[in-house]
């Protein structure tokens, strides 16, 4: 532990029962000058109420246009340990499954070549290695690739596709999320490593409408599991829920957003034609209810999640697609979208902004899709909710 840090403001963040990133970084400060100066610079930022990071310029290793986020201290003379503090994004395995041996490999490489700090995982989905110097980038990359790892995406390229655990651990998965994630990652290696797009393009894959990757809110293209037929009901398990005294009326029937569920004794009746696949009843009664048998995915386009301003939800562009190997239908769709966006999009224009600018009708025509009623405008909206506007001015009798 480094006692010479003099970081009283950061020290406050070590108090309390919650895990503290300050405590973690301090545990490295005895071994790494980089960790010491990281804390010192952060303390100065807290004192001065401004950040001292600069980024840009450097983006990858030889031949790559992504995977490295160049980061520099704006005060390199004062904090030489973080004069360079580049981030590496490492392409994560589908579903974030690791062997303990794989984790040891990664951490050994990073102890040797970087700060020893990681994010498991970044919001992009990648395994993030935080803080190294420029001269360590190529050696780190070599060490990673020797063990079978690769860098992920950054900049105006396909970002590393990311998926939920899918059928590996979840009974609700409507398709093999891990397989398509693996396939898309390999199919589009050029797009992942060599930025050619107008701006970033994120693909997130969730096996059911619970949407554990938040694809509807955070990905330019969401692939979200769905089914076409009726919710499957196990009558015996349903009767057991009723016999257990569970408040099915209050917990399930009255919480159905379209009111399409009713109870008749121990039997559940679902008007599937009005079901919006919200997953609530299936989540509350997992032993009795499960997604239908005719499974696939809905494809959404246009979400992005910058904090505070400009966030968009995705809109349904393909209501239902079978997701089966070799995934050619998906490749065809993705490539039609990229071609039209590439040709007519402007610099730094996300696909959602592009659709808003040219109109959905023009976009559909451009990619060769017919309009369908399910291509709904709502609920595409800002997913962040701010309540200030609902507070009446003082003196106007508001609450």
């Amino acid at each position: 532990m480094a006692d010479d840090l003099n970081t009283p403001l950061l020290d406050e963040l070590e108090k309390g029962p919650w895990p503290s990133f300050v405590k973690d970084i301090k545990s490295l400060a005895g071994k790494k000058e980089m960790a010491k100066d990281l804390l010192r610079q952060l303390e100065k930022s807290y004192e001065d109420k401004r950040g001292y990071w600069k980024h840009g310029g450097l983006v990858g290793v030889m031949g790559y246009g992504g995977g490295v986020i160049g980061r520099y201290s704006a005060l390199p003379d004062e904090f030489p340990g973080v004069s360079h503090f580049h981030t590496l994004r490492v392409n994560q395995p589908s579903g974030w499954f690791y062997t303990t041996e794989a984790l040891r490999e990664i951490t050994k490489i990073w102890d040797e070549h970087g700060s020893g700090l990681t994010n498991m995982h970044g919001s992009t989905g990648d395994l993030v290695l935080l803080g190294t110097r420029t001269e360590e980038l190529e050696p780190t990359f070599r060490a990673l690739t020797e063990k079978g790892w690769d860098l992920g995406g950054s900049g105006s390229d396909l970002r590393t596709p990311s998926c939920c655990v899918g059928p590996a651990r979840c009974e609700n998965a409507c398709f093999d999320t891990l397989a398509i994630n693996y396939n898309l990652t390999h199919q589009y290696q050029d797009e992942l490593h060599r930025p050619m797009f107008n701006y970033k393009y994120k693909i997130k894959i969730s096996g059911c409408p619970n949407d554990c990757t938040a694809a509807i809110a955070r990905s330019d293209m969401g692939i979200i599991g769905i089914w076409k037929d009726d919710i499957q009901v196990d009558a015996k398990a349903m009767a057991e829920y009723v016999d257990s005294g569970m408040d099915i009326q209050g917990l399930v029937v009255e919480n159905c957003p379209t009111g399409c569920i009713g109870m008749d004794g121990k039997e559940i009746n679902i008007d599937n034609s009005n079901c919006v696949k919200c997953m609530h009843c299936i989540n509350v009664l997992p032993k009795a209810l499960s997604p239908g048998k005719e499974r696939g995915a809905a494809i959404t386009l246009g979400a992005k999640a910058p904090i505070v301003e400009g966030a968009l939800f995705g809109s349904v562009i393909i209501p239902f697609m079978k997701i089966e190997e070799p995934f050619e239908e998906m490749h065809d769709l993705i490539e039609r979208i990229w071609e039209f966006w590439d040709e007519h999009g402007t610099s730094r224009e996300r696909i959602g902004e592009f659709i808003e600018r040219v109109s959905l009708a023009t976009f559909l025509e451009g990619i060769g899709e017919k309009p369908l009623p399910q291509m709904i405008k709502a609920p595409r909206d800002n997913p962040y909710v701010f309540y200030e506007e609902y507070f009446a001015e003082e003196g106007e009798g508001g609450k």
Partner: protein
Amino acid sequence: MAIPVEQLADEMYEIVKESAGVKKLKGGDLTKAMVAKYGDDVSRADVKAAIRVLIDSGRCVYGYFGGSSIELPHTEAAENQ
């Protein structure tokens, strides 16, 4: 008649050189420039291959300042200058 990839790479390198310090060019800008010049004699795949030649040879590098670009190799820690 198809334009050789090496020729495309050379021509794009000249465009990048002329734009240095004036405008940061994206891969799409270079593609459009080549398509505008050669029309059907050049495909997007050809341009993509030519960019690969430029990058892999080290004549150009990828950069990022609010969007990815293709640039002449620059001094390390350029952001600090």
